[in-house]
């Protein structure tokens, strides 16, 4: 598993590049690579902007049925999300954004698990499987 810090805009770009490399390695199509990299970009930015920085852990995983995929685990120690369901609603934003980052990222991947508590940081795990 590769650990990448998210402390600056440059780091967000590095996370994208790294996810791209492992997505290609796990055999995802170009469209699926683009989807998971875009989702990773949204989540890395969230960790930076709303979480005050964090960490991305990227790895190639294999499913029970033998399919390869890429898994990314984002964590931050920020203020957390009080209402997770609300935060996952299209168009809802706590900042100046469009409110598509979190909900859009969820649509772009196969598995999406968000764990957060107000005051205790946020963790988002995404997986995209090859077809």
């Amino acid at each position, binding site marked *: 598993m590769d650990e990448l810090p998210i402390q600056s805009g440059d780091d967000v770009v590095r996370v*994208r590049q790294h996810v791209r490399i492992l997505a290609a390695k796990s055999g995802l199509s170009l469209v699926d690579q683009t989807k998971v990299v*875009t989702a990773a970009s949204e989540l890395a930015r969230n960790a930076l902007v709303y979480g005050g920085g964090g960490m991305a852990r990227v790895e190639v995983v294999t499913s029970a049925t033998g399919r390869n995929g890429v898994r990314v685990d984002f964590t931050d120690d920020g203020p957390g999300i009080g209402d997770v369901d609300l935060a996952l609603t299209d168009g809802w934003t706590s900042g100046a*954004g469009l409110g598509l980052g979190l909900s*859009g990222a969820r649509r772009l991947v196969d598995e999406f698990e968000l764990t957060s508590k107000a005051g205790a940081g946020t963790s988002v795990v995404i997986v995209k499987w090859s077809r």
Partner: protein
Amino acid sequence: MERVPILKIGSTLFVSIQIDLQDETVIRLQEDLATELVATRATGVIIDITAVEIVDSFIGRMLTMIGSISRLFDAETVLVGMRPAVAITLTELGLSLRGVRTALNAEKGLELLSGSS
């Protein structure tokens, strides 16, 4: 932070994005374009994203804003060269880039601009 160069050809400003965009770079591009639009009185902006591998919600919003800003300076913006995978992803993300005109490539973009002036 890297900067995206802006070229003036005739009455059109050409921007070809060849780097991995980070948020600050896009914000800077927006400011640079506004300055150039005033300085050059250009009537059109072509943004070539052939080399851009992903457009996420922030970058998409900034591109839409560049379109709105140029309109305030009486210039039309055309986004050209979007990769098929980027188009599919943007749509699934829920981003419509409303208000920004698009064309298949730079040549078609120029035709669009000359037809609209």
